[in-house]
């Protein structure tokens, strides 16, 4: 058996983006797919400081002398969502989207297992199989595999950042993209045109030829995109990654799922409230998302954003002015199909008896929310394969497609 036969027998050329018809070119096709953008807030974002439960009174404020968001109306006070919760002031750019009904919050959401390890919790969220390490694929990867058609663009699943998020693992090869400027190929000045000709010729009859063709096409597509001016995003990794996602969406390259990270939420020390590390994180996150939404303009009609973290943080702050790993957290949904302007989920409260080993209890399984997005937002009914062994309970936070 030669190499060509070998790849043929894999029988997954379509899923690999190797479909011959693809050479016709995907750029400028003006695709109008629904797009899901998943933001992983790595490190365990402190949901109790992003959407602070100010109505808990002493249960909240007494345990957090230095890291609690002041009540609405007080100096430095937050933005009242519904009389129970208040946005951190740094989330002001998102507050308007909440009031317009585009942004929804799910509170006390998290994993059904009580791990406090970043690594385990992130793996469980990304595989979509809590407490089970036997999954070899991610929930987004399974979704992409289940919805793979013959006409596969290499941009169907894009992982933005230094490494591709594990949620995209699966038989459909995600495209790893750090930045448009990084998706380039350059040889030495003067020599490069001739080298390029030679490199094309070297791959002409290899089994990898379709992949090579995708590379050249993607290079051409992305080079065209990079020349347009970037709108006003924060000059941070997260902001710039979102800016790139928006460009891909506008260009209609066939993007269906983008996964990216907003890093740095592991605030064990000197978390601060209105100033300090946490406020900076929250501001970057909120401003980037708001800029993304504004930038999308009419394309926002087909774009849904989900942001989540591996867990929330402890109710009680620690001796270093920070918070340690907790359990229940928050999920954030923005955009197409989202019934926003509400805080979803049963709120368990912060009374001692309501806590789960000192932490906010989890009353909504992350899979309930993600499954609803998959079914109602992306129109993929095979949720039992995206989240195997789980029967999700929808909260009604997405409109029926």
């Amino acid at each position, binding site marked *: 058996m*030669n190499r060509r036969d070998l790849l043929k027998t894999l029988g997954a050329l379509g899923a690999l983006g190797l479909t011959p018809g693809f050479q016709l070119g995907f750029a400028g096709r003006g695709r109008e797919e629904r797009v899901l953008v998943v933001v992983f807030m790595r490190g365990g974002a402190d949901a109790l400081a992003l959407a602070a439960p100010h109505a808990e009174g002493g249960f909240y404020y007494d345990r957090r002398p230095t890291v609690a968001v002041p009540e609405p109306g007080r100096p430095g006070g937050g933005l009242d969502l519904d009389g129970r919760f208040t946005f951190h002031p740094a989330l002001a750019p998102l507050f308007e989207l909440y009031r317009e009904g585009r942004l929804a919050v799910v509170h006390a959401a998290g994993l059904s297992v009580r791990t406090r390890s970043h690594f385990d919790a992130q793996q469980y969220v990304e595989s979509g199989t809590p407490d089970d390490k036997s999954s070899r694929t991610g929930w987004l990867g399974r979704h992409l595999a289940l919805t793979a058609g013959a006409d596969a663009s290499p941009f169907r699943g894009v992982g933005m950042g*230094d490494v591709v998020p594990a949620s995209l693992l699966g038989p459909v090869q995600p495209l790893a993209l750090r930045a448009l400027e990084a*998706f380039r190929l350059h040889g030495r000045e003067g020599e490069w045109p001739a080298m390029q*000709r030679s490199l094309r010729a070297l791959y002409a009859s290899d089994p990898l030829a379709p*992949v090579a063709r995708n590379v050249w096409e*993607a290079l051409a597509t992305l080079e065209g995109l990079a020349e347009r001016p970037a709108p006003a995003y924060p000059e941070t990794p997260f902001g710039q990654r979102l800016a790139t996602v928006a460009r891909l969406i506008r260009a209609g390259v066939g993007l269906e799922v983008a996964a990216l990270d907003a890093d740095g939420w592991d605030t064990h020390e000197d978390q601060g409230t209105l100033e300090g590390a946490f406020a900076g994180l929250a501001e970057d996150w909120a401003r980037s998302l708001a800029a993304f939404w504004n930038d999308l303009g009419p394309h926002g009609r087909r774009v849904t954003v989900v942001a989540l973290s591996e867990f929330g943080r402890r109710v009680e702050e620690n001796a270093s002015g920070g918070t340690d790993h907790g359990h229940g957290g928050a999920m954030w949904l923005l955009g197409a199909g989202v019934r926003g302007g509400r805080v979803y989920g049963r709120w368990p409260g912060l009374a001692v008896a309501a806590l789960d080993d000192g932490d906010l209890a989890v009353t909504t399984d992350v899979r309930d929310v993600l499954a609803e997005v998959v079914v109602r937002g992306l129109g993929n009914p095979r949720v039992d394969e995206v989240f195997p062994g789980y029967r999700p309970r929808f909260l009604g936070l997405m409109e029926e497609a």
Partner: protein
Amino acid sequence: MSLSQNETHLLLRIGFLPSGWAAERLQALGAEAFVEEQLQPERIPEDPEVARKLARLKLLEMEPRLLARAFDGEGRAYVELLRRHLWRNGQSRRRLEARMAAFWTNHFYVPAEAAGHHLADYHRTLERHALGSFRDLLFAVARHPAMLTYLNNDSNVAEHPNENYARELLELHTLGVDGGYTEQDVKEAARALTGWTTHPRAIGGFFFNPDAHDKGNKTILGHTFPAGRGIEDGLALLDLLARHPGTARFVATKLALWFVSDAPPEGLVRRLAEVFLRARGELRPVLRALFSAPEFYAARGQRLRSPIEFLAAATEVTGVAFLDDWILLDALNRLEQPFLGWKTPDGYPTRARAWSSTSGLLARWQVALELAQEADGDPEGGWGLLAHLENRDPAARTVGEWVDKATRQVWGREPSGAQLAALVDYTSDGQGAGRPLTPTLAGRKRGGLYALLLAAPEFQWT
């Protein structure tokens, strides 16, 4: 000196380039004796430069407990481990041992992030047995804190069994997913392993806690485990699995995937499994059988180098040494194989299909261009590399001769007509193979030629 096709193939699959020390040694000894020598690495005098570099990696010798207390001990040991990996797989004369160590660390996979300060010790443990016996490997892994904590056996107790380790023990370490075990076997195996945990003061970090052990009787794979036993349950389970024909078959399949091709012939796998069983899991006889099998030599060009194999080979071709940790780590991130960064316990995939992404191929081309051009002294390269490509470059009078020699040296095979034409066209500025190779022309073309050789499909497939 010219190697036969089979000799070239043997070298490439063991992890050597088809030139240099290994090529000379193979020609001097013949294939059988060469493999035999590789199977006894302690008898091979190591390249002095490599030995010196390896000896400098002090953190890898540290006790995990001390490493945990050293400033950024975990992070620095991780980088040392990566450097060690690249030197051993890209420069060492004991290449087969390195390749087998890489095989086992991927088979009994623990992500760097999950292993924490146990990582280096875990790898050292596996390396010790890399060419030894599967049984020793299995027992060592089952008692190592890196695995016990990663797959949560440290919280596997009688009242709340945790099945993560037991499941992967059957599915990934021994029988394989089609190995004929049932869900019930997984549950019972987990019960047999209750109480196998860690303790910071225990030797090696392993501790059996009899109070957490489920003392009831168990039935696993049709074998009865009588009630009332303690650690013997787990030991008997591991022994049963090490001797099981399903394990022999699974390990044989994985070795064939590692060394032969993505679809290894059934006859070969069966023979290797038989050798494995007969030799009671001793690995040398299995490898001897593998490297003398006709199916092995028939699989030329059918295996795609993984990104880290590509990087190791490319650094060997160009002779580059990374001066900067960050650039090295970043190169592997871009190639989509961050060192020990795979998130699930099955380890990085080995099949070509897994390494055929658009962005992955682009990254290989980028790295090929960057390495070769910087190795050729391009100040714009920005890689912070030390390299002397000029010293490795074969002497030639014409472009045709130059391309031919360089191709054999890097790819190990004669290029096809079209490939040769593509390379000659670039190198001769379209003037053809007969163009005399002047020092000026060589100076202008060397970086580009080597970049193309590294970026070409012939360098991705071995």
